[in-house]
């Protein structure tokens, strides 16, 4: 099997040694020269011409899409190297990128379609043919459509280059119920920036002179090019201030670390606004021309003095005042970093709104070193037949109305799950997941299990047996990104990376794995929807590049194509995509909807004295909960630990490495304690992705603790974003309580 190609060196010398000895022993005199000759020949071959094939691709280990060159030797991917011409990733490949080979040749990979034999989650499977699997899936989907309308199927595409086809399939099938990963991740940030600037920005980290980073851990949660640019800029003298209850590597490498009281970032940013406004540190002309609601904001921030914020955040007022002044002095090449994963509090959007407001005051929008607008790369959207209309269908998403301003394409996992469990407003009985693992990424695993329990049919398309696939009725094997021809990717945003990137297979798909587009086409055919999927990837890619005549050649030569476009000043002379057509400090629409038009501080729930706040966070080795079992990456960290302050541990009689039990209102998990002086005494942390239920994930099954099982499922009121830092847990030494 191909998986044996990694880390399985063949010792030519040992082989020759013993066979040589045997030959010599058997035929004295003739054995030796032959062996010597063989050695010389082998040496010559090794030093000969480089016969390896090099394939341009883009990484799929996380969602950054970094450029890579796969080195293929004798049909085996031997090494992935960064594509030096790929500016988005700054010619680098991280640990995960390098470990892509371990995903391709993962012994845990799904090899053929599996149909559930025993009870859900019991792990008894029957191998079936693709024909059987697809017939079965189509029949189940048809039954659900007939019984509960087409909205009875929920679709959950992951963040993959082929996920767009799952979206299309859902609309062609006729279900509005699509929930992506984003509602467990960053939609509150998107909401906040859309509702301030009318657009979600990219941060021009490279040219920024001063960055305040709160709720982001850019040196561990790697985002290209931000993570790299952050270091380059820091080398050039940029100042970095980090707010985090945890001494992350970003905090460790920053100029300042402020162990902020979790959930009080809003107070900090309101105080920054207070200082900037009251000390008139803003550009008055800019404010008059571009911002709307300055008067309201001025009045609003008056009570939010640094001294008041010190009480909330535990960051000294003098620091707050100083940071505000330093930020303003560096403006517009200074910023509050927008961050990504913002699934933390019930007011996540408002927290990010406050951050966006400070950015607005700094006047950094569309400016070097500030927040950048998206640029168009010039990819064409292939014209496909419009999805049909089904009159006898539900009119709204099942999670409709559960949050004030949800995103149609993303939905809210938290609310959708509640709706399905409640059966309100209508039953949703089928679930199609593609490379998405909400069992591990969505808070409150018990609830996810409950939701799955009530389903009639669940099918998961994935590379390995994730916990979500483990619960499915039908599991379909997908190829990894190194085996696929994918749609062309347009990467746009931060400085120097409005580009087009290609992914072509480095090796053919292993085992019986099939790309999800193929699966969807087959399902469409069986559901009499074949006409909507009557295209193939080659055609699709050609259509995408229709308007970029030079792209094809550049992609073949460099693996990337740059469409020159304006970077700064895109908004010059243009209006903003907001109701007031200006940058909205005071959000007009919020006001209409009865929401706080300017963020109002509400203190986080107090932590009971015998409990801790549980926080989440990333490291550079794992993508959410998908690469923990990777044979290579797992060697960096083979289980998660509970970060706890030594003083807190001491109080509980917990020593470093002691097994502890962590209890929350929704779950109970055990793992080892790790005493860390770099975490607040009222906070504990653990990495996500461990404690898997799936026996198909060796290395993480029953190893460490599952953070999703402990987190309660609160949601951000505005966006429906999961709020994962609202859980209090108790910690005890295992066996002690």
């Amino acid at each position, binding site marked *: 099997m191909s998986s044996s190609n990694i880390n399985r060196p063949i*010792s030519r*010398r*040992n082989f020759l040694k*013993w066979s*040589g000895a045997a030959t010599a*022993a058997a035929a004295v005199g003739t*054995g030796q020269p032959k062996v010597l000759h063989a050695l010389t020949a082998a040496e010559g071959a090794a030093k000969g011409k480089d016969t390896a094939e090099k394939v341009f691709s883009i990484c799929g280990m996380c969602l950054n899409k970094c450029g890579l060159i796969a080195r293929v030797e004798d049909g085996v991917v031997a090494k992935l190297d960064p594509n030096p011409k790929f500016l988005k990733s700054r010619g680098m490949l991280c640990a995960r990128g390098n470990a892509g080979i371990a995903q391709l040749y993962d012994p845990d990979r799904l090899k053929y379609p599996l149909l559930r034999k025993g009870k859900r989650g019991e792990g008894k499977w029957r191998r079936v043919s693709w024909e059987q699997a697809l017939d079965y899936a189509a029949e189940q989907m048809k039954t659900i459509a007939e019984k509960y309308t087409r909205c009875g199927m929920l679709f959950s595409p992951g963040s993959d280059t082929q996920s767009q086809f799952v979206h299309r399939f859902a609309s062609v099938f006729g279900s509005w119920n699509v929930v992506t990963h984003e509602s467990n991740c960053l939609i509150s940030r998107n909401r906040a920036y859309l509702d301030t600037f009318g657009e979600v920005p990219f941060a021009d980290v490279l040219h920024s002179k001063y960055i305040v980073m709160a709720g982001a851990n850019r040196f561990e949660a790697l985002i290209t090019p931000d993570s790299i640019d952050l270091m380059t800029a820091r080398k050039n003298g940029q100042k970095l201030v980090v707010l985090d209850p945890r001494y992350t590597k970003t905090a460790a490498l920053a100029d300042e670390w402020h162990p902020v009281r979790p959930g009080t970032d809003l107070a900090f940013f309101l105080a920054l606004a207070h200082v900037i406004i009251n000390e008139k540190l803003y550009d008055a002309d800019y404010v008059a021309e571009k911002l709307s609601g300055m008067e309201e904001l001025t009045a609003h921030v008056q009570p939010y003095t640094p001294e008041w914020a010190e009480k909330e955040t535990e960051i000294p007022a003098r620091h707050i005042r100083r940071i505000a002044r330093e930020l303003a002095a560096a403006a517009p090449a200074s910023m509050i970093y927008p961050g990504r994963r913002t699934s933390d509090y019930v007011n996540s959007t408002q927290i990010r709104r406050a951050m966006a407001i400070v950015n607005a005051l700094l006047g950094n929008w569309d400016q070097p070193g500030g927040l950048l607008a998206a640029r168009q790369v010039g990819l064409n959207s292939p014209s496909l037949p419009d999805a049909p209309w089904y009159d006898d269908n539900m009119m709204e998403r099942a999670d409709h109305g559960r949050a004030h301003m949800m995103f149609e394409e993303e939905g809210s996992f938290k609310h959708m799950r509640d709706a399905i469990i409640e059966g309100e407003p209508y039953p949703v009985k089928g679930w199609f997941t593609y490379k998405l693992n909400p069992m591990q990424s969505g808070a409150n695993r018990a609830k996810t299990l409950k939701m799955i329990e009530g389903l009639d049919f669940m099918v998961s398309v994935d590379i390995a047996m994730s916990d979500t696939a483990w619960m499915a009725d039908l599991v379909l094997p997908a190829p990894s990104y190194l085996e696929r021809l994918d749609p062309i990717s347009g990467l746009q945003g931060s400085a120097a990376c409005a580009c087009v990137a290609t992914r072509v297979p480095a090796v053919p798909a292993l085992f019986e794995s099939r790309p999800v587009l193929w699966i969807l086409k087959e399902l469409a055919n069986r559901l009499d929807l074949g006409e909507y999927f009557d295209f193939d990837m080659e055609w699709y890619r050609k259509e995408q590049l229709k308007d970029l005549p030079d792209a094809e050649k550049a992609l073949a030569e460099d693996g990337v194509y740059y469409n020159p476009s304006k970077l700064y000043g895109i908004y010059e002379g243009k209006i903003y995509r907001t109701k007031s057509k200006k940058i909205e400090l005071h959000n007009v629409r919020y006001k209409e909807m009865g929401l706080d038009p300017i963020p109002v501080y509400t203190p986080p729930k107090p932590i009971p004295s015998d409990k801790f706040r549980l926080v989440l966070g990333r490291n550079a080795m794992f993508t959410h909960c998908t690469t923990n079992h990777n044979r290579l990456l797992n060697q960096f960290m083979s289980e998660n630990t509970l970060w706890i302050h030594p003083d807190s541990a001491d109080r509980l009689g917990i020593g470093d490495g002691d097994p502890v039990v962590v209890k929350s209102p929704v779950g109970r998990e055990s793992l080892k304690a790790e005493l860390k002086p770099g975490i607040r005494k009222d906070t504990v942390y653990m990495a996500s992705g461990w404690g898997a239920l799936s026996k198909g994930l060796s290395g993480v099954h029953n190893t460490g603790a599952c953070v999703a099982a402990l987190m309660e499922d609160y949601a951000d009121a505005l966006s429906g974003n999961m709020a994962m830092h609202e859980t209090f847990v108790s910690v005890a030494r295992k066996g002690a309580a």
Partner: protein
Amino acid sequence: MSDEQSIQKDDAVETEQMERHTKLSIFMHWFNAACWLFLLATGIGLIRNADLQPVGGWWTDMMRGIFGGGANLLLVHEIVGVLWAVVFLVYVIAKAKEVVPFLKEIFTIDPKRDVLWLVNKGIQMTLGYKALYKLDGILKGRFGYKPEIPDQGFYNVGQKMFAIPSILGGVVIVVTGVIMTASNVMLENTAPVQWAILIHFLTVGFVFAGLLIHVYMASIAAGERPAFISMFTGKVPEDYAMHHHKLWYDEVREGR
């Protein structure tokens, strides 16, 4: 030299020849000698480290030059070493009837007679017969000393004193060699390998020291020519046998 040969030729007519070595044992002797020489030369050539190299870096360079690099040298050394050990193992097993009495003979020592032989033969070989009588004059029969060189069996104790360590040493060399060779096939722990290297070196050194005497006695020393020739023909003249291996000679005579 020519005198000697002519005389022996003449003797051959009159002197009856006695069977001393089988063809196979002759072959084994020379096979052993060739292996030893080869393994010694290549083995020393394997030592690169100046602190450890007993001869000097030039030897290492030369050997590696001949064999096309250290790796080939090691391979050849290992192959010949394994070959040497395997051939001997096969020989010992297949010819146990021949080998066991041989070993018995080798390991049988009469302390009283043999110590005296060693002392006297040593004195005789270096200082001469006169020295023996001088010593006798000094000791005057104390410690049971006699100036004569005592009679010996199939092998004299000098030969045994070389044979015993070279057999035991051979075993040690093979065992340590196998440990080293096996080191990159199956061994997990490196401590035995490191010790094997040292023991291999020491044992070879000691046996080689004995080998110097053996080579001298067998091929250069006065009066041992018939023994040397017997390592090709398998036969020794009766008078030589009577003189050098009286006890064996008597045994054969009686057995006849």
